[in-house]
């Protein structure tokens, strides 16, 4: 039975990482050549780790389900990446980034991990610039910054609305260089379907070649799971269509504890859903909240007129608008953290102020930004008495240069021009803070098996701040795993090549083949998407933005029901020994149908509100914070790490108590 030892080094917070690096074991360069590492996933965490391992001399096998590592969903991250560089001279520091992240996570993250994250954040920017990542710069040629939610400094580095793309292409370039040198063997269009554990240690994986259907065995001295989050359990999310929880879930079922599955980030600024045909939701970057103001009409009669189309939002007078974030949270205004902004939007829409036909939309308005930037640019361009039309035109030009691709994306999807009318937005599932439990070294409860990036649970607590996912993915991949994995592998130098002919590999391969046979032979009547959509609806309605005990209990039962129907009435055409996109989806949905139940179970057990997890039973009843989420540190100041026990509903709870030695536990206030 694994125990939860977080292996946090002793000493002052600012010295822990340096001390740990000085004390951990190293592997001699000559020995690295004989050690294999499998990295599953090629996003920021996986791509960066695989490239870095190969540069250090290890033999690496890299896997992705996409055709190329460059397509991992990190590519879709828009707004930016945080780093405590203090280039803006606004009082930023490692400590402040650490503090903001712990507070933003509603005091449910692990202090030591978060401090390390802040500590290496500056190195990430240096590294990326050295790789040729074209960050935004100002006229002096130095790097530019913007602000993100939940903080009072400007520490976000960006490349228009395509920061994730540029950072991923940096990691992909580094990875490509190592593939070209033969140091990394790439398996594109391959999906990991099982983890192989030999004598208690992770020793390899079983993969399916998505083109030929071939099931293959791969051995290694260590396995890194960097396969992202499980937001697609909701069917509709901002994740890519292929994003899935399978690798993480299979690892969980092989013995890795799964931590805080209920911590989900519902992102406040996404394009609202339109109809049944919809396959995914599209994010509008949080960076837009730098310049956009969020509002709904003050009066219900205006809401009705807008819905009927008799009143345009641009016609509504300032005094008839309710800028509800600025009203409720004057200190942070439109830049409150994501969980707070999402709940505030839901509150207004539940009260009947939603501005579209479905009643689930609020405005994100750039009117005042057009004016502010327009006046500034007119001065810079030497136009002394600019006309209102000139100011507006200049203002639009500036906004275009900052967010052009996002505005274009919005227009293509909605057929409405956001330069002329405010954007409509609504919260949507975006990121999962929960994931595989890892210790300070990012090792799971299975020795030799690591988890990195969104796939692990560690750094963001119950709510992730904007522009911190990219930071964490690259920190794990470039600057944490390359050190910590050596500590484990130093004991593996005498192991030699690992055979794939052992009973454990044979058995794991058989389990994969059996599951595929079982799926193909149900021969029922309903499609994979039919079940996925039903699961998604239960998750959104009862395990979504607001949760209560009754709904969660029902959800667990309903998900079990859907799972049983799935296994008796699923229909997959075609064959297993060739490309079969329905079979791929079926395997992923089968895992979501288990994960979803554990998710609801975790949400039910955590009878407090914290970060993205909001329990209707746990709300401040009076005082200045009336109506805000109420955390319960006395009973829930721990990481919930679940151990697999034959069925998700029977999972066994283990607790890692969170110690706050360097930051005082306080109620999170953004007022």
């Amino acid at each position, binding site marked *: 039975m694994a125990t939860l030892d977080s292996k946090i080094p002793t000493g002052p917070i600012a010295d822990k990482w340096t001390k740990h690096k000085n004390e951990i074991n190293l592997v001699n360069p000559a020995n690295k050549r004989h050690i294999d590492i499998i990295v599953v996933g090629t996003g920021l965490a996986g791509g960066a780790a695989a490239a870095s391992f190969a540069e250090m001399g290890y033999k690496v096998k890299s896997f992705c389900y996409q055709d190329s590592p460059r397509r991992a969903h990190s*590519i879709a991250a828009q707004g930016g990446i945080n780093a405590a560089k203090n280039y803006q001279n606004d009082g930023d520091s490692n400590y402040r980034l650490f503090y903001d992240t712990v507070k933003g996570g509603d005091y449910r993250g692990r202090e030591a991990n978060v401090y390390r994250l802040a500590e290496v954040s500056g190195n990430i920017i240096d590294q990326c610039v*050295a790789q040729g990542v074209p960050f935004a710069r100002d006229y002096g040629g130095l790097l530019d910054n913007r602000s993100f939610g939940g903080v009072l400094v400007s520490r976000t580095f960006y490349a*228009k609305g395509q920061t994730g793309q*540029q950072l991923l292409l940096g990691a992909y370039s580094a990875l490509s260089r190592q593939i*070209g040198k033969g140091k990394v063997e790439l398996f594109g269009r391959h999906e990991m379907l099982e983890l192989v554990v030999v004598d208690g240690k992770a020793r390899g994986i079983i993969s399916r070649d998505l083109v030929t259907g071939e099931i293959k065995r791969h051995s290694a001295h260590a396995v890194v799971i960097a396969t992202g989050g499980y937001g697609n359990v909701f069917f509709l999310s*901002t994740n*890519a269509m292929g994003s899935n929880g399978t690798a993480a879930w299979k690892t969980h079922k092989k013995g890795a504890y799964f931590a805080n599955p209920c911590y989900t980030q519902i992102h406040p600024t996404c394009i609202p859903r339109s109809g049944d045909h919809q*396959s995914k939701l599209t994010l509008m970057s949080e960076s837009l909240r730098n310049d956009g103001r969020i509002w709904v009409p003050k009066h219900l009669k205006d809401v009705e007129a807008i819905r009927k189309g008799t009143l345009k939002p641009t016609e509504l007078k300032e005094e008839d608008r309710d800028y509800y974030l600025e009203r409720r949270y004057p200190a942070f205004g439109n830049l409150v953290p994501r969980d707070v902004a999402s709940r505030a939007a839901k509150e207004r829409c539940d009260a009947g102020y939603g501005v579209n036909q479905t009643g689930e939309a609020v405005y994100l308005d750039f009117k005042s930004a057009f004016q502010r930037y327009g006046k500034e640019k007119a001065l810079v361009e030497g136009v002394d008495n600019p006309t209102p039309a000139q100011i507006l035109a200049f203002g639009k030009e500036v906004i275009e240069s900052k967010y052009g691709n996002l505005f274009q994306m919005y227009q293509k999807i909605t*057929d409405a021009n956001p330069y002329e009318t405010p954007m409509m937005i609504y919260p949507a599932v975006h990121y999962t803070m929960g994931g595989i439990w890892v210790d300070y070294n990012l090792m799971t409860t299975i020795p030799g098996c690591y988890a990195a990036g969104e796939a692990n649970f560690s750094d963001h607590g119950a709510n992730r701040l904007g522009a911190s996912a990219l930071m964490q993915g690259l920190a794990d991949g470039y600057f944490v795993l390359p050190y910590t994995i050596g500590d484990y592998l130093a004991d593996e130098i005498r192991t030699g090549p690992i055979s794939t002919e052992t009973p454990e590999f044979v058995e794991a391969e058989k389990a994969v083949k059996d599951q595929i046979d079982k799926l193909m032979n149900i021969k029922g009547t309903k499609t994979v998407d039919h079940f996925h959509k039903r699961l998604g609806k239960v998750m959104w309605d009862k395990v979504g933005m607001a949760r209560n005990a009754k709904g969660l209990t029902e959800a667990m039962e309903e998900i079990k029901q859907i799972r049983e129907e799935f296994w008796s009435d699923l229909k997959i055409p075609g064959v297993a020994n060739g490309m079969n996109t329905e079979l791929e989806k079926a395997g992923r949905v089968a895992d979501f149908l288990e994960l979803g139940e554990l998710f609801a179970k975790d949400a039910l057990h955590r009878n407090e509100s914290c970060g993205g997890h909001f329990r209707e039973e746990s709300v401040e009843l009076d005082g200045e914070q009336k109506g805000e989420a109420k955390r319960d540190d006395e009973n829930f100041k721990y990481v919930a790490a679940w151990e697999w026990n034959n069925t998700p509903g029977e999972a066994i709870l283990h607790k890692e108590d969170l110690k706050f030695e360097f930051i005082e536990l306080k109620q999170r206030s953004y007022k």
Partner: protein
Amino acid sequence: MAEKFINVTLKIWRQKNAQDAGKMVDYPLKNVSTDSSFLEMLDVLNEELVAKGEEPVAFDHDCREGICGMCSLYINGEAHGPDRAVTTCQLHMRMFKDGETITIEPFRATAFPVIKDLIVDRDSFDRIMQKGGFVSVNTSGNTQDANALPIRKEDADNAFDAATCIGCGGCVATCKNASAMLFVSAKVAQFSLLPQGKVEAQERVKNMLHQMDVEGFGNCTNTGACEVECPKGISLDNIARFNREYMKAAVLGSE
């Protein structure tokens, strides 16, 4: 702006695997929402096919927000279809008329063999990248400070514009020569504009061009169709920059 429903006839390339000859097959589809994206329209078709026990149409797609570069359809004779500056996932059915016949084929090029139906193998792009699409810098906690080297805003912006290429291959599918020049030149131009990329500029341009030829892509004859169809608006200027870099390498090369 209001949602409408249209009927269309789809003519889709079906091919079981790389060995199969393949053929066009007609599929009528009713009540397609004009608010749905082109790929969501294909989702609806596939749900109908699966319900009938037929194999769904295989097509590549992932992020569905125009950035991963996975989707790759040739629609009515154009890479990514009739709209401009979009990937197929950003193409919406409001671009089509009621009763229209829509022809859907895979991207076609010798260097992009068909895997199944509308899915092609674009590994050749990755292999070109492996020959020089990088700056040779290892991960290190000791590189110089990111602000130690100012870069002219104009150069940084141009490098960014070149770097926004998503590697979809639309340029190749559109080019009458099936040339990968826009793709390769965008990467070469990005690094040629940045001080970090200048050190290996000569080797990069030669090695990437050589691999492009090895993969069986055609030559560039500057017809410019690639620029028109590129979902990210990658400019032909990059090809000019590539040629300049190549000339420099050829004339000044130290070998």
